[in-house]
């Protein structure tokens, strides 16, 4: 089936302005994807403003110079700089200047200065069943799975091009039939105490991503809603270890009131029965080193910390002084609340380094160490930190991360699956 553009779309594509450029980029992508047409979208979340090199900055500035503006609500994912000045970024000139120009160009295009990988906790929550074009793998999976809005994984350049023309290629997860589950991921064999623990969801997400790959599955055996931050951690981990764009949890996520409703056929193509052994292996796989005598830092907030997660962090620290820094990555939406009640100052006085607008795996923040050890409670940080920062990773619960940061050495509480 070949792509068919409306007369209006063809007229836009013929233009020499920024909208023409954007329309041609979206249409060429649609042709490669085999989409028959473009569909209107309600919003975008843009991952393209993170600096990877000068060409991306020049592209964004070309769009600005040619008069382009986003046609729909568009939030921005993290950039390479902390524009709020909470943390010190070790990016050198001339890259630093080019990264700043890039962030500035996206602002001029009309994007909201959200600078967060958790836009869904910063007031950007598209309606169930609406079509949107989102980038950033954890945001995509949350948007599809927890909100029930429809998006594919929109990569750099295509995200802003869709935002400018307010349209996206009609394929993949925009089509209801492609959103149905083909396999079951059954966690009923795990203990309720493990499922109620805070490490359950990032660890299960990491296992889910590896087992399910790019297929669509439904999780069964979950007795009650685990909370939005747990689903955020599950999706982020699953989208790091696999190419997950959408998951369902029977009785929890909006498109899966029960298993039967969301399955594509009368029988699933496969059933993965999760055992405590599988969980133990997945949990161990999140660490890349054995626990030694010391840790150098703790990093949390991938995806960005919510206000509720800062509450937990503060309760766990309980006014103590940290021996090694806790890098707490978040967005302006949570930072604003922290500043209102004086908590930012209290946390920083304890030794927490708040990182806003960006995070520790996308831009150089933590000191360069040859044998650094980082502890984290994030499945996503565990996946990307070794390659992007050079630190070895120890995976642990938030409570253990905080205790370890207070003592400067790794502490683990046993949580059996």
């Amino acid at each position: 089936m070949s792509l068919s553009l409306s007369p209006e779309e063809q007229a836009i594509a013929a233009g020499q302005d920024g909208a023409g450029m954007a329309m041609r980029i979206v249409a060429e992508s649609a042709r490669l994807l085999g989409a028959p047409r473009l569909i209107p979208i309600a919003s975008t979340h843009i991952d393209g403003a993170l600096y990877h090199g000068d060409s991306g900055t020049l592209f964004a500035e070309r769009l600005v110079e040619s008069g382009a503006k986003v046609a729909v609500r568009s939030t921005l994912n993290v950039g390479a700089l902390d524009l709020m000045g909470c943390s010190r970024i070790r990016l050198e000139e001339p890259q630093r200047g080019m990264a700043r120009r890039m962030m500035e160009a996206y602002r001029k295009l009309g994007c909201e200065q959200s600078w967060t990988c958790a836009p869904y906790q910063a007031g950007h929550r598209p309606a169930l069943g609406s079509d949107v074009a989102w980038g950033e793998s954890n945001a995509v999976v949350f948007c599809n799975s927890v909100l029930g809005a429809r998006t594919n994984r929109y990569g750099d350049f295509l995200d802003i091009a869709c935002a400018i023309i307010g349209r996206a290629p009609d394929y993949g997860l925009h089509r209801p039939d492609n959103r149905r589950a083909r396999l079951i991921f059954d966690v009923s064999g795990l203990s309720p105490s493990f499922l109620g623990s805070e490490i359950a969801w990032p660890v299960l997400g990491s296992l889910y991503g590896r087992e399910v790959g790019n297929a669509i599955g439904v999780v069964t055996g979950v007795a009650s809603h685990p909370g939005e931050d747990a689903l955020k951690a599950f999706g982020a981990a699953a989208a790091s270890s696999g190419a997950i764009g959408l998951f369902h949890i029977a009785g929890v996520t909006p498109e899966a009131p029960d298993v039967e409703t969301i399955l594509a056929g009368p029988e699933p193509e496969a059933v993965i029965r999760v055992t405590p052994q599988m969980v133990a292996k997945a949990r161990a796989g999140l660490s890349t080193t054995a626990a030694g005598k010391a840790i150098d830092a703790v990093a949390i907030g991938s995806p960005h910390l919510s206000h509720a997660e800062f509450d937990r962090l503060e309760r766990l620290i309980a006014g103590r002084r940290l021996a090694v820094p806790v890098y707490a990555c978040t967005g302006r939406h949570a930072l604003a609340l922290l500043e209102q009640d004086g908590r930012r100052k209290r946390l920083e006085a304890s030794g927490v380094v708040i990182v806003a607008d960006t995070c520790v795996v996308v831009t150089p923040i933590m000191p360069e160490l040859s044998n650094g050890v980082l502890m984290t409670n994030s499945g996503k940080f565990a996946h990307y930190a070794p390659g992007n920062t050079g630190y070895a990773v120890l995976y642990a619960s938030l409570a253990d991360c905080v205790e370890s940061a207070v003592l400067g050495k790794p502490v683990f509480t046993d949580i059996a699956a």
Partner: protein
Amino acid sequence: MSAAAEILVPGKAGEGTALVLTAPISFWGGVDPKTGRIADVRHPQHGEVIAGRVLFLPGTIGSSSASAVLMELVHNGRAPVALVMHEPDAILLLGLIVAREMGWETPIAARLERGAFDTYRGAVVTVAADGAVSAAV
């Protein structure tokens, strides 16, 4: 030997020594955008440089920033002289589509069955503007 391949993204015809990858690659994190060197230590062709080569790709994996890396390679003059792919990867090829929109000279990308890749290994290969892939004997 020669084969008529389908054009995925039009571009400048290219000639160079074939680099046939034996495993899929993630451009983001897998290829250094400044040099074109394959940086993924787990990739079988780790250490090879894709710049100036006719690059045969059996598949691509990973990040949605692959397009940004390919465009950066074009901008830095470190792109392959042609890409030959088993199947189109819209995210990667977007790097060429956007670079063309920027007015930069981009290599052609053509589609060829991966079963035919082996016959080009190590040969000097030309990908013509009409998509024909041929090797000097």
